[in-house]
């Protein structure tokens, strides 16, 4: 056994690759629909007033955010974990019937959770907390899914052959612990049907209905501690885990600095958790907490940039690979978008800048240069790297991947530049006033001024979706008609047909 390469078992990884792609298409499609609904409000009722309830912006919006966060991104995290975990721990899932069973239950229960989320959100059943809309029965299911993933992580670590844990594993562990803590605390809620109020009255509302355990400012603080760190531990930490594995593996280069990876990891862990208060600037939250949120946001720049710089320096002297491989292009551009959005966020968290940026489209643009340019690029690159290894096939088309790269890059650029212009314009219009303090513009004036940018945003999103469909097609063709490859072709650079 020790003398030949391990036969890794990618059954569960494959399952999650499938959901990554399917839920990615769903989430991004809904996103594009929403973008055009904002540009052309009549689209809200385009299918008739009978189904307007299901097609309007407010009903679809949580479906978009939750499908891309908990559907696409989390599936990508799980898929890469079930791939990377085995390889860097040098242990196969096939070696433990228990872990294999846990992995499969993890997947099927996750599917049940996804179905419950889609149905309940479409029906309008929601706790109305952003990114935490699921009612308590679904929350319980999600906690179980999460615990199963934890069993899988620590189980695999428990039977590993590699003595030290690779940096990616640290990041996956952090993802697990971070989300577990955040999700539990923010979703503390009281099912009103089962529990009595102060007057001893129970049976209020439907059986699935609940209210938050916290009230007022406390609720807002917990919510944005959660909301901000869901970005940290869902969109940053596991994606860094991917970049630490897939970039050096694909390029055959060693990581630039072990020290930098360690310091970036621990400082990111420490600093990120304090910055959530910047979502509540100029609110009823105590002044010192607002200041703390801003200060920690600024300090957060360097830990974030540390990982990105480590990635860029890993490619020192390897320009030829960057120029030739679209797969590496995805990862390098992802690192630079990561740098851009992790500087943009802290700048928007400065109180004086936030006074203009808050509630504008600049924030929406910021989120999307992160998720489109960084998260989704990195996940797609990871899946492109994994596909030939799990299917033992060559990537179906390199030129398709190249085209996809440029179409999606254009899509991201259109998205964030249009929102950049729209957000700054909007903020300035809201603040504009005459010498007597009267506002110059009413809200509808800003809507009219922003219309062209809303349209451009929709076009950018549509381009990105088209690119994603090309990605899905490429992976599908790889799986079905790709040329069979030998193990020795899979060491580093991914084999691709022209």
């Amino acid at each position: 056994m020790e003398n030949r390469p391990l036969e890794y078992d990618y059954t569960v990884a494959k399952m999650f690759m499938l959901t990554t792609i399917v839920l990615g298409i769903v989430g991004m499609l809904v996103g594009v629909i929403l973008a055009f609904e904002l540009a052309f409000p009549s689209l809200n009722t385009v299918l008739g007033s009978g189904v307007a309830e299901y097609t309007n912006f407010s009903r679809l919006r949580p479906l978009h955010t939750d499908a891309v966060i908990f559907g696409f991104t989390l599936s990508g995290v799980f898929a890469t974990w079930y791939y990377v975990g085995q390889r860097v721990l040098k242990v196969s899932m096939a070696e433990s019937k228990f872990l294999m069973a846990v992995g499969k239950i993890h997947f099927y229960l996750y599917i049940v959770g996804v179905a419950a989320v889609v149905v309940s959100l479409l029906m309008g059943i929601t706790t109305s907390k952003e990114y935490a809309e699921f009612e308590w029965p679904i929350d319980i299911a999600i906690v179980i899914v999460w615990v199963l993933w934890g069993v899988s992580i620590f189980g695999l670590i428990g039977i590993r052959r590699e003595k030290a844990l690779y940096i990616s594993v640290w990041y996956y562990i952090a993802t697990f612990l971070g989300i577990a803590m955040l999700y539990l605390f923010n979703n503390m809620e009281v099912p009103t049907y089962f529990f009595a109020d102060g007057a001893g009255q129970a049976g209020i509302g439907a059986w699935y209905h609940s209210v938050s355990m916290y009230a007022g400012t406390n609720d807002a603080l917990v919510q944005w501690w959660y909301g901000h760190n869901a970005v940290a531990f869902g969109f940053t930490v596991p994606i860094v885990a991917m970049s630490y594995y897939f970039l050096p593996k694909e390029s055959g280069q060693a990581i630039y600095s072990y020290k930098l990876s360690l310091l970036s990891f621990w400082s990111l862990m420490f600093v990120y958790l304090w910055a959530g208060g910047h979502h509540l600037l100029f609110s009823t939250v105590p002044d010192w907490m607002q200041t703390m949120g801003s200060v920690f946001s600024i300090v957060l720049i360097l830990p974030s940039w540390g990982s990105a710089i480590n990635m860029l320096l890993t490619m020192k002297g390897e320009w030829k690979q960057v120029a030739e491989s679209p797969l590496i292009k995805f990862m390098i551009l992802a690192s630079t978008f990561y740098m851009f959005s992790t500087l943009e966020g802290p700048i928007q968290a400065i109180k004086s800048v936030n006074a203009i940026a808050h509630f504008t489209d600049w924030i929406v643009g910021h989120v999307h240069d992160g998720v489109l340019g960084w998260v989704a690029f990195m996940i797609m690159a990871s899946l492109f790297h994994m596909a030939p290894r799990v299917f033992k096939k060559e990537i179906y088309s390199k030129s398709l991947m190249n085209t996809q790269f440029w179409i999606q890059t254009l899509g991201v650029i259109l998205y964030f530049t249009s929102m950049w212009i729209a957000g700054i314009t909007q903020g300035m219009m809201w603040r504009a006033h005459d010498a007597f303090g009267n506002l110059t513009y009413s809200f509808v004036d800003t809507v009219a001024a922003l219309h062209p940018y809303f349209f451009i945003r929709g076009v950018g999103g549509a381009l990105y979706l088209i690119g994603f469909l090309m990605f899905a097609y490429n992976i599908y063709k790889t799986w079905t008609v790709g040329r069979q490859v030998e193990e020795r072709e899979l060491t580093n650079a991914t084999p691709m047909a022209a």
Partner: protein
Amino acid sequence: MNKIYLAAIVTTLAMLGFTYVAMDIKGGLNDDIVNQLAILGAVVLVIATVFVVTKYVRQMQTDKATGDLTEENWDGIGEYMNEMPFGWSVIFLLTIIWGLWYWTAGYPVAAYSQIGEWNEEVAAKNASIAQRAANLTPNEKLHLGKAVFNVQCAPCHGTNGKGQENYQTGDLRAENLNKRALSKKYVEKVIREGSNQLGYAGGMPPMMLQDDADIDAVATYIEGGMKGEQPAQYAVCGSCHGMNGEGMDFVAPSLTAYNVDLVKTLLTSGTKKGEIGTMPREAKILTPLQIELVAAFVANGPATELEE
């Protein structure tokens, strides 16, 4: 030129251009420190990111990976024992020192209050407004009144003050402020039931006229714009509303126009109910000066073109 430098320059110029466009569309810098800082932030963001990314991407072309590897490797991935980039380490250390300083000494939490800052700013603004208000021409007053109107009144009454109609019944949902067109139905209701929605002291008592025929005659006369022969019973109304229906300041509103007295009284103490809902008590939001200005603007007829 090297492609990387070219890309860096194009990106920087494009992003700065977009920022400039955004400043130029509407709103603008407006001499507002917040706007200026936001633009500064945007410029710093673009330049810093492009500069640092260019520096490292350029190293992919010119530099070579070197250093001692750690003993372990994972799935064939090694890690160099290289030191951390010097600039990165120094800036990280500086932000930590800055953060500690800012939070404890530079901007001490106990010495700052958001509400305090708000109060100070409002007080300063009010003082400067009072100073300017002392010598306004009538035309300037109308323009300023229009600005208040656009924000506070136009959402229901429209920017031209023509109100809005219920598209099914044709009834007014928000009044046309250009003329006071009282319907017969409404006048009859007010005579029978009384009214004090506009906020005049005491309001109007119910049943000032008793006889149905009298009520009908007066209501028809008022709906018709008080033209033609005046019914004798109107004298009861005229004792407060004036024989020409022009109203009496502080006592009773005009029946023909939204004059300054009516608008001021309504905004300060009225609780006007409309089809949409009760009109907000604007006095809570507006200063006395703003009420003065908007009343002048409404009395002038919101649809009337103003001189520049």
